[in-house]
């Protein structure tokens, strides 16, 4: 079985060669401006995180409890909201533009021991070594191959008609909402393969080392946001806890939205194991293209989405520094137009809308398309 495109093998090979050429051209031109970019993003992120925490504590001084002229509920709520937004933004930057991309080895070439895929640990409950397995290996190699890529519905959602319907999918809009709110926990448990545990395909003993790794990370992450920082506020423990919790939810909902728009919107294709047998690199490129979706937006939007708004370019060139995706995207899009291949790029509203609609629609059985 072949890929659902009108190109013959020679044309696919030529398409692949053109992509190789773009890749080599960009990779050999990496230099000072790329290094300066990632260092600047890291610096801004750390200042934002530090600043956010400080503003949250500062807001406590505006609680009506203190009785001074500025101490009013609106003042307090305004300032604590600002601090929470700063912290949430810092967490988004850290997880997406920094953590995800550093762990893809996008910055290893700099040989900076501080910014290496092998040693980076990110600010979320998922341990980085497990993430690098479930994401870099499973998802990026087997993108959208049913039965191989566990990111197709993350083991709990039916996001393609190619997944057989079962009654367990009926309430999937509920799972979907919960996953959006507590996305970091979903990501953390991803490599445990809970659905295989429940089905008995994997034993608890096999899952134990993974669970222990998650446990160690959870203790530190929860200890930080829900114990250490709140305790520092003494009697105002709950305010700080609430702000930290909200910052984590902001990060979760945003990254969930961006990530769900990567492969699930209308037009994105899935594949069978037979289709990818003996796949050449050129065909792998085509599969990455057909299975990925971009989101249009401005410069700040792309940075805040970790450049996963350039999901197509990220899947074609996963170890290319993310700041180069915007300049590569028009070239890839023009190349696709030349070969008559679909290039799925739309606004966040359209991509997230069709994704949500799909999850809702596929919770019900679909007539078998013959």
């Amino acid at each position, binding site marked *: 079985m072949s890929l659902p495109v009108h190109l013959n093998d020679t044309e696919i090979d030529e398409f692949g060669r053109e992509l190789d050429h773009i890749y080599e051209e960009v990779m050999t031109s990496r230099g000072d401006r790329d*290094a300066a970019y990632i260092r600047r993003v890291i*610096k801004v992120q750390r200042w934002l995180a530090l600043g956010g925490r400080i503003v949250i504590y500062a807001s406590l001084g505006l609680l009506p409890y203190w009785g001074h002229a500025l101490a009013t509920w609106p003042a307090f709520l305004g300032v604590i909201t600002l601090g929470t937004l700063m912290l949430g933004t810092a967490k988004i930057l850290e997880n997406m533009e920094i953590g995800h991309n550093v762990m893809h080895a996008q910055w*290893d070439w700099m040989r900076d021991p501080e910014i290496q895929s092998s040693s980076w640990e990110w600010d979320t409950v998922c341990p980085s070594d497990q993430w690098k397995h479930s994401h*870099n290996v499973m998802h990026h190699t087997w993108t959208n191959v049913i039965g191989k890529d566990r990111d197709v519905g993350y083991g709990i959602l039916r996001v393609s008609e190619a997944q057989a319907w079962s009654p367990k999918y009926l309430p999937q809009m509920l799972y979907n909402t919960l996953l959006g709110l507590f996305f970091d926990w979903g990501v953390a448990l991803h490599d445990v393969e809970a659905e295989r545990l429940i089905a008995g395909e994997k034993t608890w003993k096999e899952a134990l080392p993974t669970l222990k790794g998650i446990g160690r990370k959870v203790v530190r992450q929860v200890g930080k946001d829900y114990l250490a920082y709140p305790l520092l506020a003494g009697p105002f423990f709950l305010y700080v806890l609430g702000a930290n919790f909200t910052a984590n939810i902001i990060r979760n909902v945003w990254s969930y939205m961006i990530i769900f728009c990567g492969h699930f919107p209308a037009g994105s294709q899935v594949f069978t194991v037979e289709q990818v047998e003996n796949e050449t690199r050129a065909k792998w490129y085509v599969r990455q293209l057909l299975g990925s979706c971009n989101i249009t937006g401005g410069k700040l939007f792309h940075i805040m989405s970790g450049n996963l708004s350039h999901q197509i370019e990220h899947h074609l060139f996963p170890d290319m520094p993310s700041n180069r995706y915007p300049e590569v995207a028009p070239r890839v899009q023009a190349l696709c137009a030349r070969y008559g291949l679909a290039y799925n790029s739309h606004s966040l509203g359209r991509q997230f809308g069709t994704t949500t609609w799909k999850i809702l629609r596929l919770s019900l059985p679909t007539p078998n398309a013959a």
Partner: protein
Amino acid sequence: MKARLLDLAGLFATPLRPSHYLELVNPLWTTHRLQARVESVWDETADARTLTLRPGRGWRSHRAGQFIRVGASIDGLRHTRTYSISSAPERGDECITITVKAVDGGRVSRHLVRQIKPGDYLPIGLPQGEFVLPEAMPVRPLFITAGSGITPVMAMLRSYAALGRMPDVTHIHYAPHAYDVIFGNELKALAAAHPGYKLKLVHTRELGAELSQRRHFSAEQLAELCPDWAERDVWGCGPAALLGAVESHWNQAGRARHLHLERFQAVLAPVPADAAGGHVSFTTSKCETDADGHTPLLRVAEAAGLNPAHGCRMGICHGCDAVLVSGCVRDLRTGALIDEPGDKVQVCVSAACGDVALAL
């Protein structure tokens, strides 16, 4: 107790360390890595510059003659080289100096000499090396230096002068011309102030190319400049040719154990463009094998009975990355050569290009 408290403070910064946030305010306050701020720069000659560095927290004082690793980012890429400290430990302002000569075709040395300015930060390592004077002062040292090989010996001389204990020293220093002598005026001032310090400057190119050979190190020259050489302990630093000549002379005289030489990394032989395959050492697993120029090293390792970590086997996931110890590999996708020790190699898409050692 202190460890517990630090661990608790660490919780506030997890998954980073508090030191990462201190770095935002002042890079010299960090404990997770050592950096130095460039305080000033001073041109010693047309192509040699002294950088005065203020090391951050975690620095410990050096012994005269030791060197440090210095990192520099050039085109976004980190390079690390070693440089002798040229200042004395007794300097007193908690700064150190390194003196770098811009080598022809030397990217790092040219960068340090031409691009670095006061206020820059450089990653550095702690002082290292055995090229030091014994704790019990030798009675009569002989220093033999050439070019920028003066730097560790300068630290020793400055240390003697600072302590006011200049012993009976003979110092033979080679430089192409008088104006090429790094620290020339300071050496002459030392010689004037300390009768025990006998400075013998040799300008090797002053007589034109033809006669200059005669000015290089030789037994006759040594006998003339330092008649009592056989009664001295020797510290030598300079180009490989000089050190080789000095070494064979002292070996012949049976005085090899009185010889202390400082050699910086040997120049690596360039990899021929048509090199294909070679001997492969997997250093972590202590396994040796041979490879051709087109089989991915991951398969070479597996054929040799190893089971290295890997993922996609097609250059996507970086699950198989291994650090290059020495030699050269070719990226089979792009044909690019990777030959800088410390670089990461994607072994699933790289083949040997000549002999290679990998930390695998």
